[in-house]
């Protein structure tokens, strides 16, 4: 009788271990999927930004320094994105958001630019993309959080250690994201 119960416990333990392994694989892929969902939007914005810069460039007096900042920040985001360097991406994303915010603030001083249909469409598109990126960042961080908790809690931590499941980095945008744009400074 005891042997039978021990075998039953062993069977349940093995099945449970297998289900834990599958769970860890599932949450790992959920993180990868959440990252891919952000990546596709970052790529779209990367492709849209040159169009915005081109439209602004048509106005010769538009401040070149601001445009240069946007280009540099765009390149930094692209490098971090391609390397899948999450901390660097968070920092670069913060800088890019601040630069694009500065560009839009500066554009307020150019009524002709503001009345340009293509500019308005691009501004709207940029706003939609940035909101979507922010939402998907939340989703990504939730997926990362679930992954990191799962590989640390007992008994999943044993399986995670045996099969080298790793914790992932949260995507945190730097403070520039939340800083108000200093419009006075931009126009000085």
């Amino acid at each position: 009788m005891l042997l039978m119960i021990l075998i039953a416990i062993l069977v349940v333990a093995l099945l449970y271990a297998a289900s834990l392994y599958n769970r860890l694989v599932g949450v790992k892929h959920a993180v990868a999927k959440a990252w891919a969902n952000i990546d596709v939007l970052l790529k779209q914005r990367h492709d849209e930004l040159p169009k915005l810069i081109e439209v602004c460039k048509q106005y010769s007096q538009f401040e070149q320094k601001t445009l240069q900042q946007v280009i540099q920040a765009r390149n930094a985001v692209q490098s971090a994105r391609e390397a899948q360097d999450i901390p660097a991406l968070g920092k670069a994303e913060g800088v890019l958001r601040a630069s694009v915010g500065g560009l839009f603030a500066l554009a307020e001083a150019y009524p002709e630019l503001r009345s340009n249909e293509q500019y308005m469409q691009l501004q709207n598109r940029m706003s939609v993309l940035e909101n979507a990126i922010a939402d998907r960042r939340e989703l990504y961080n939730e997926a990362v959080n679930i992954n990191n908790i799962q590989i640390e809690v007992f008994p999943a931590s044993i399986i995670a250690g045996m099969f080298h499941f790793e914790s992932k980095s949260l995507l945190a945008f730097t403070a520039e994201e939340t800083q108000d744009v200093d419009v006075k400074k931009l126009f000085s």
Partner: protein
Amino acid sequence: MVISQLRHFQLATSGVQLVLFAAAAQMESRSGWLLSLPLIALISVFAWLSALKKYRTIADTPTSKIASAAQGYVELMGRADRNVEQPLLQSQLGRQACVWFRYSVERRDNDGDWQTVDCGESDTDFLLRDDSGVCHIQPTGAEILSCHKKVWIVGAARHSEWWLLEGDPLYVLGDFKTSQAAARFDAEAETGAMLVRWKQNMPQLQLRFDLNGDGVLDEHEWMLARQAARQEVEKIAATVQTPADVHVLQRPENGAMFVISNLMPAQLARHYLRWVWGNLLLFFVAVIGLAFVLQQPDF
């Protein structure tokens, strides 16, 4: 808390386990128990793994926002709302205004047990709203769990109804699809149609684009006409209010879990966790019972 619809598999497995147990008890024989207890154990272990998978799907799926949700399998949370394009929905028996209902009518049989004589549920679309947007929910094929239930007696019949009400907090897990408004606007096709319209008034077309005045539109002049048509089409498109993207959540085609509930994820997870523990307990009871029967040759 009342659960309106348990997963069919869970119900089926519980039913089979009960039937096996009752059959073995009625047979009052050792062979009957030796046959039924291993089967009960086997079914319990499958039901345990199934409930565990469901529990983890709910616990491990991050919540998306409607406006930025990726296409595919997602979890959304918000409030239930009526689809104004559909007529006001009222439940079958109690005439309760709702966004979804399920009902059953039961009567007692000769043994005094309640037997279902009629049941059904609504399949009308309704809406889920969060702070970012609206999603159409197609409830067909969903496992719907509601905390709103009413049971009452009408003559010899017992009526039961479950509802999802307008304004209820709503949790959904399913296949998310978006038909994009932008994709519905085909600039190339619209430009072609514009040129066809212009061609119907050739003198006017030549007046605008026949730059060398030879009475024929050459390749360069046609290109200019085409550019002008494209600009006009884009101008019109910009002035016309673009319809919003339509998001729909429906049953996943790959058979993945499709859940709609006005219970919060933590409550839902607890619900499945109870099934996990229940089936595990049943498994061990069956195993211990089997070991006991095997040890007692005279049983």
